[in-house]
């Protein structure tokens, strides 16, 4: 009995130590803003697509998404005419590739902008991080990072990406629109990171429903077979 009490208190001390550490290490990062997105909302995804092709695609690609894909995904379902307008000279099966060459990008920004196909699952914080980053430009309190490159949410605060939506020093009357643009493009990026996600979640409900029924039937069968065992 006494031996177990010692062991239990040892366990408790270990657990407390770990949870203390967990609290200490969790508090260091900035709390992200919440992205207001719905990857099943066609209107929002289409608005996000336009923000993406008008602004992001100036520098970034999303190579795993093709113009044909934009037509075929039921969540987007853009028309052939719109696809033709977006793609210009590029083939229909081409990915959403920026016209900015890696060499020019390196010359202008010091690095090649990352592909955005998987940016949402590829960053800690996911969609919230992307949204926060887009609306996180500020003036460096220490004045070290050049204007337009200081971001509250970017690790180290100095990002090579110049304020794409014009958040820094925006007029108060523009705020709602920029927030909407940031949310829309975040929704689009979240969608393209896993374009079968809505299909997956819909199908998942049926799969889980079926499994619950099957489990119930098997439980009753097990009970029936075991009823004479004591």
């Amino acid at each position: 009995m006494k031996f177990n009490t010692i062991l239990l208190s040892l366990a408790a001390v270990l657990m407390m130590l770990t949870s203390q550490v967990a609290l200490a290490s969790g508090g260091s990062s900035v709390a992200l803003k919440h992205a207001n997105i719905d990857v099943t909302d066609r209107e929002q995804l289409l608005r996000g697509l336009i923000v993406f092709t008008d602004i992001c695609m100036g520098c970034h690609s999303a190579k795993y998404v093709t113009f044909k894909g934009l037509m075929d995904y039921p969540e987007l379902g853009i028309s052939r005419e719109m696809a033709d307008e977006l793609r210009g000279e590029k083939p229909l099966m081409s990915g959403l590739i920026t016209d900015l060459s890696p060499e020019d990008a390196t010359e202008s920004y010091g690095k090649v902008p990352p592909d955005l196909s998987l940016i949402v699952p590829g960053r800690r914080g996911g969609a919230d991080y992307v949204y926060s980053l887009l609306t996180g430009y500020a003036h460096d309190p220490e004045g070290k990072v050049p204007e337009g490159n200081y971001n509250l949410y970017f690790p180290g605060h100095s990002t090579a990406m110049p304020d794409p939506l014009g958040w820094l020093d925006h007029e108060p009357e523009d705020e709602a629109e920029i927030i909407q643009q940031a949310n829309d493009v975040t929704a689009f990026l979240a969608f393209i990171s896993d374009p079968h996600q809505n299909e997956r979640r819909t199908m998942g409900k049926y799969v889980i429903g079926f499994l619950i029924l099957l489990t119930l039937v098997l439980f009753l069968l097990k009970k029936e077979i075991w009823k004479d065992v004591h």
Partner: protein
Amino acid sequence: MLDAMMKTKLFAWVDRRLGLESIIKSQLTEYPAPKNLNWMWVFGAIAMTVLVLQIVTGIFLAMYYKPSAMLTEGGFSLAFDSVERIMRDVNFGWLIRYTHAVGASMFFLVVYIHMGRGMYYGSYKEPRELIWIIGVVILLIMQGAAFFGYLLPWGQMSFWGATVITNLFGAIPVLGDLIGQLLMGGFSVGDPTLNRFFSLHYLLPLLLVAIVGGHIHALHTVHSNNPDGIDLDQSDPKNIVTFHPYVTMKDAFAVSAFMILYMYIVFFNPQMGGYFIEVDNYMPANSLQTPAHIVPVWYLTPWYTILRSFEDKLLGIVAMGASLAILFVYPFLDRSKVRSARYRPMYRGMLILFFIDVIVLGYCGHSEPTATLKVVGQIATFYYFLFFIALPFLPKVEKTKPLPEGV
């Protein structure tokens, strides 16, 4: 239905040449199982199910996967592109890949519970030592297969995880460099590494099937332990039920219930918040950019903590090796005559603390290293070994409770 089938002419023809009927009888319809087995005994069947699912999904993934580090547009690779093609363009490719990726974590989860059950009820003890030892071989092969498999998407964590682990071998005296180079197929992780890891990732699970066969054969030779850990006369019908239909139905129910959890994760949360598919692995491998912290997937983190608990690299490797090797001698370290922890109060307390200890080790290995965590990890490492080293001396001080006569 089984009886009706056994009477057909076709069955008789096959039976005369294969001895099917005697196998069915000895392994299923007349194979005895203690009737007091509790729900902890279902995890073996669940583990088998996951193994089969991993192999089936893996075969289909291999039809589309390309093990090549050749660079493609945007800093990606043929391997990474082929995985994304599976996720986006292959019909139900996303389902097959998520089932496989989540399956790796589920396999370890189930196997760890299965091992914990064996430890709690003394299933590793005489005469079942070989079942346990074969089981440890299975665990090691699983860890190898998981490590090789994690390289295949050629993401950042794939690349850097493999780099860290293969570099470890460099610390082994004399042969270290050679082993590292053999593993990598060169002087650093690259295209040849990816090719051989793919080959080994395909080979190991097939070996696993054979070894699982040995695990089950050993079990069927000595028969199942039971929650009281007592020797039962398994020819006495009042102690046992037949494997089929009793245990098969119980296992079928358990597998189905487990599938609810498994499929819930696959369909609704396949990344599991970065625990099952790490965030960094959505970025393509880049040998010029080290991720902020390189962490193995959760099921390897307890051993990673043991490795990191020592300043000296070689000592860390030796400790990590020892922590796995000690599992082989576990049945011989434990000298108590009583099997089940139900009747061993001190062992029970030590074992529950051991389970907590392994979780703490896992937590430390998954977190960013801090000074406090390092000390916690070292204490946990110390207890991990203390648990095994104390076992031979335990019977001298432990007062076991009286065992029940039967079930």
